[in-house]
């Protein structure tokens, strides 16, 4: 179905199945249905609002045929209770005037009416969206149509394929990374600014006298500059700084952290006064850091220079810090291998999740997802259980009830 005009209208808020800021806003603005009008009006509004979210790509007639008035539900059982009672205890003594036990708590209500749209959750495109492999149902649908999705190892080009319990579906990892990653293209404003900057840079370059030979004085100055420039100093110090920051975020004991914090503070100060920085300060800081590292690298108490320097860390702490550094190294290697900058990718690299994704991140229990290979298994149909309905719907219970009543076709 074609995307309707004003898909996200700010005048008439509609919640859509996508991870956009518009949907987030509409979810935040959603209110309980206005119950002061005729029953037909209430039902109509509930149906309109909920159908804009559930199966918006399906035609109304198709959905009407898909609708089922029987809703799957389960009740969790306690095997110990089942083993020790045969069920007759529930009625025991009732005829003799025994009333029901007041201490017994009533089980929670089973929200059947939030399950009106459960058949739609069976659809392949919706299941892909629910397993967080696509940023909207329309995108999931496109993936299916474009042949990027396999069900039980076979390519399935039908977004309307109704998954059966036990079906495994796979989406191309590249497609998933594209769908869930931050987009590569920048906003129009950012693009304009960067274009202006580029133009300005080009101008200065053309204005520069190009073929002039460097004067002797300049050459002499260059010869002298064997020691690093201030900019170089600053970047190298910043590098050290980030290293320390990363170490601090991993698990460490409080004492080690204090030491590192002091060290970081000194680096910070040095950066603040970077214009006055001389190679000596850097070398000392660097020396400090490498000393710390050496201390860590030294295998518990063998190579540590115990005579001249006071032992900074206990053996236990050393092991911990070593672990932290190893973790750091591993992470750096991992980033270099799996999440490197690559201009050929259709998404922003290094990969990061797109904006607003975390607000929509949940995986319903009827799916079991393996994110590494971008595959998921549809375990069973979504069910209602006491206090919980598994169909993810943003609407209130009343809306669900009204929509269900609309499709009962007794209006």
């Amino acid at each position, binding site marked *: 179905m074609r995307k309707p005009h004003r898909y996200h209208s700010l005048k008439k808020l509609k919640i859509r199945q996508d991870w956009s800021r518009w949907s987030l806003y509409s979810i935040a603005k959603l*209110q*309980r249905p206005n119950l002061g009008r005729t029953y037909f009006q209430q039902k109509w509004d509930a149906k309109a609002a909920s159908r804009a979210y559930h199966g918006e790509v399906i035609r109304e007639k198709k959905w009407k045929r898909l609708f089922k008035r*029987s809703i799957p*539900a389960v*009740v*969790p*059982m*306690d095997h*110990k209770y*089942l*083993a*020790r009672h*045969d*069920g007759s205890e529930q009625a025991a003594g009732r005829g*003799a005037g025994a009333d029901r036990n007041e201490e017994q708590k009533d089980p929670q209500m089973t929200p059947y009416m*939030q399950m009106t749209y459960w058949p739609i959750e069976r659809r392949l495109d919706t299941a892909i969206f629910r397993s967080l492999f696509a940023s909207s149902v329309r995108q999931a649908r496109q993936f299916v149509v474009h042949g990027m999705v396999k069900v*039980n190892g076979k390519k399935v080009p*039908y977004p309307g*394929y*109704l998954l*059966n*319990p*036990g*079906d*495994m579906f796979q989406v191309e*990892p590249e497609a*998933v*990374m594209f769908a869930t990653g931050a987009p590569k293209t920048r906003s129009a404003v950012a693009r304009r600014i960067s274009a202006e900057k580029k133009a300005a840079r080009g101008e200065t370059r053309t204005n520069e006298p190009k073929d002039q030979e460097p004067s002797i004085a300049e050459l002499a100055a260059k010869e002298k500059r064997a020691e690093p420039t201030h900019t170089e100093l600053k970047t190298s110090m910043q590098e050290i700084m980030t290293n320390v920051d990363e170490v*601090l975020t991993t*698990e460490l004991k409080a004492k080690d*952290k204090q030491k590192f914090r002091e060290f970081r503070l000194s680096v910070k100060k040095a950066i603040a006064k970077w214009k006055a920085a001389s190679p000596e300060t850097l070398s000392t800081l660097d020396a400090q850091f490498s000393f710390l590292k050496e201390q860590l690298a030294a295998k518990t108490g063998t190579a540590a220079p115990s005579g001249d320097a006071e032992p900074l860390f206990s053996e236990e702490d050393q092991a911990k810090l070593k672990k932290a550094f190893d973790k750091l190294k591993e992470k750096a290697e991992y980033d270099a291998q*799996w999440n490197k900058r690559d201009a050929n990718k259709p998404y922003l690299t290094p*990969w*990061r999740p797109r904006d607003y*994704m*975390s*607000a929509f991140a*949940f*995986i319903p*229990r009827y799916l*079991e*997802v*393996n*994110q*590494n*290979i*971008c*595959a998921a*298994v549809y*375990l069973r149909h979504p*069910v209602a*259980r006491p206090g*919980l309905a*598994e*169909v*993810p*719907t*943003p*609407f*209130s219970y009343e809306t669900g009830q009204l929509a269900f009543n609309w499709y009962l076709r007794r209006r």
Partner: protein
Amino acid sequence: MAARRDEEKRAQDAKEEDASLPPETTEDLRPFPMNRHFRSQPVLSEQLREAIYNRVAKDGATVALASVEFGVSNERVGAVVRLKQLEKEWVAQGKTMALPYSKAVLNMLPQTPYIDPSLPENRGKRPIPHESINDLIVHPATRQQLFVPVAESRQFTRVDAGKAFQNDLLPADDRIPHPELVQAERELAAGLSHEERLRLAEKRFAAIQEKKKAEEAQIQAELASLKTVPKRRWDFVFQDVSVEHAGKDGRGLKGVGWRYGFPHEDRKKGQVKIPTKIEA
């Protein structure tokens, strides 16, 4: 269950010390503020998935056993093993996995941690159950309320209640995914000795294995009855059919081929061609 998970989470956060955010509340785990009946429920952590896979694929535990041990439903155990198997194959083939994506998504979701019993700090701790493993499906026949007059002197049990709803409806004890737990508990309540219970459990296990073997044999026999002719691109598979399958009126469900007076409707308008089932 949730309390222990929170506790575990808090301990993890305390380890990281300057985790700036407090642990999430139930309110935070509700992605839709209007819907009080939907929660973002925890997913299995990577370590837990690995542990389940190892238990089933390496140690050879049955799915039901792993399900009880980890507090994960039967279907989920099967799915985890299947997906992990595929993941290992990918690693062996050197395929590129979506690791940055996986990391980011798992960070966004609440997780059920794995309590590794081999670690010294976890001694005596039980695993955190992921979900209820004994879910009883609400049978359509039980949806209506029944008023059955019963004599006061009669012991009206779950079995009788099932029969009152529908003649062949089994009691809950037999319809839950882990009836063996009920059986074991019953034996415990009956005061049987450990050896006796062990013997009974082994007997049950043997019976299950026998049944499984028979099913497997039947599948093999069915496959053997097919005649396969391998060709360059496709294999031709021939299956024995009988003309009689079409039945007296020629419209039997098992009948094959075109039959006189029975029109094919597959070219008609509105005929859905989407498959309803895809074999694994």
